[in-house]
């Protein structure tokens, strides 16, 4: 790990700090590296970025992400998805659907575009670097603002808008949440080109997210449709259940997907470092990298898999488990897939 990697990772764990607080911490660590003049030794002394961050947060009196209301899902190198206890319980209490049935499952997502929608807004938004979502029964689109000005527009059905806001900004964080009594037809959010993070959860919702550079994207979703296109994401973690997930033309550095009873279609998207897909009862369509810059390590339990002849690798079969690995020497990235009762198509 280099000094820069260490500081980047530390940053990821310190998202709950304000911008100023974060800058101060990073300056301090930066200075420590300068004084030490031996990055390897410095890192050995500092301890892992995760430990260091926890220690800092605890001692600065900040709530760490292991608070009582939230559960952490470790989603690979340096990323943690935090999802609400309620959502976790729901996910765990869900009875596992039959494998084939899940292919034809109808998702209970509301589609109400054809109904009357009256725009309310746009409202200009103060500066923010992070978006925190807690969304149920909504259609939300997030895209880059053409003039780099952050704005939000609500579309409501006539007569049921009470003049309450569904967003607030605190210390650089935009909180966007749904309201039980008011049905929004749609919410359009226009954001600056680069954001630090988008976190949160969705239920029975549609989310379109496109054209944004994000350092950290972690979402939990249930019964939802998610469309992500033209994004640049450094660290991505998604925990998805009973949802449709479409990925188009995204640049990912490190990504981890936990999928259950879901459809995942990925097009023109390759990780620059690594991507892990863990799927249960899912249909997964993953592209094969024509440049052979990506290695694949696939573990398939039950289920089925198809791959193009161009993908050359080693196959090992033990009982119900098939392990397929490629060993391209020039590869710089790795896609790991662990699929149980899934239909996996490498395209």
């Amino acid at each position: 790990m280099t000094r820069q990697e260490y500081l980047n990772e530390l940053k990821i764990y310190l998202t709950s700090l304000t911008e100023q607080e974060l800058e101060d911490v990073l300056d301090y660590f930066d200075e420590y590296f300068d004084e030490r003049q031996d990055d390897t030794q410095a890192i050995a002394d500092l301890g892992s970025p995760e430990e260091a961050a926890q220690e800092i947060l605890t001692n600065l009196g900040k709530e760490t992400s292991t608070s009582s209301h939230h559960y952490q899902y470790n989603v690979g190198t340096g990323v943690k998805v935090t999802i609400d206890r309620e959502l976790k319980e729901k996910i765990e209490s869900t009875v596992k659907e039959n494998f084939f049935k899940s292919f034809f499952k109808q998702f209970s997502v509301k589609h109400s575009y054809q109904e009357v929608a009256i725009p309310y807004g746009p409202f200009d938004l103060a500066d923010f670097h992070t978006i925190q979502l807690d969304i149920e029964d909504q259609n939300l689109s997030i895209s880059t603002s053409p003039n780099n000005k952050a704005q939000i527009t609500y579309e409501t059905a006539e007569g049921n808008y009470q003049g309450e806001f569904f967003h607030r900004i605190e210390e650089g964080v935009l909180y966007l949440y749904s309201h039980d009594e008011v049905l929004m037809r749609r919410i359009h959010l226009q954001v600056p080109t680069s954001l630090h993070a988008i976190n949160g959860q969705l239920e029975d919702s549609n989310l379109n997210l496109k054209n944004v550079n994000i350092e950290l994207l972690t979402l939990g979703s249930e019964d939802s449709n998610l469309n992500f296109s033209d994004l640049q994401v450094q660290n991505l973690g998604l925990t998805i259940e009973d949802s449709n997930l479409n990925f188009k033309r995204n640049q990912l550095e490190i990504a981890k997907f936990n999928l259950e009873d879901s459809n995942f279609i990925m097009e023109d998207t390759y990780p620059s470092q690594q991507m892990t897909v863990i799927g249960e009862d899912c249909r997964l369509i993953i592209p094969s990298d024509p440049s052979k810059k990506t290695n694949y390590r696939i573990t398939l339990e039950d289920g089925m898999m198809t791959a193009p002849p161009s993908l050359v690798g080693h196959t090992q079969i033990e009982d119900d488990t098939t392990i397929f690995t490629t060993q391209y020497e020039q590869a710089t990235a790795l896609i790991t897939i662990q699929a149980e009762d899934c239909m996996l198509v490498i395209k």
Partner: protein
Amino acid sequence: MYYPVSSILIEFLVLSILEKQDSYGYEISQTVKIATDIKESTLYPILKKLQQAGFVTTYTQEYQGRKRKYYAISNVGREQIRFLEQEWLTYKNTIDGIIEGSLRK
């Protein structure tokens, strides 16, 4: 060293170091490390806390083309040392008293 050093004691050490001379993060941590194996992630929040309490102030100085953040003790910080010193003596005498046998209930 075998005995753990509490964060209050580290505050006391840091203030005492700064009472003699202004110093920067790395130098402070090296001195504190003589007494206890402390990590930067533990020391940083303590320095921050001392700063927020008004016990220390900071300024930046160039050193070999880069920046060093210096910490200096304030008057309130000096008063805090007198308080911590008194508490430390009481603590030390009590522990010694029990160990040596001069203190008993």
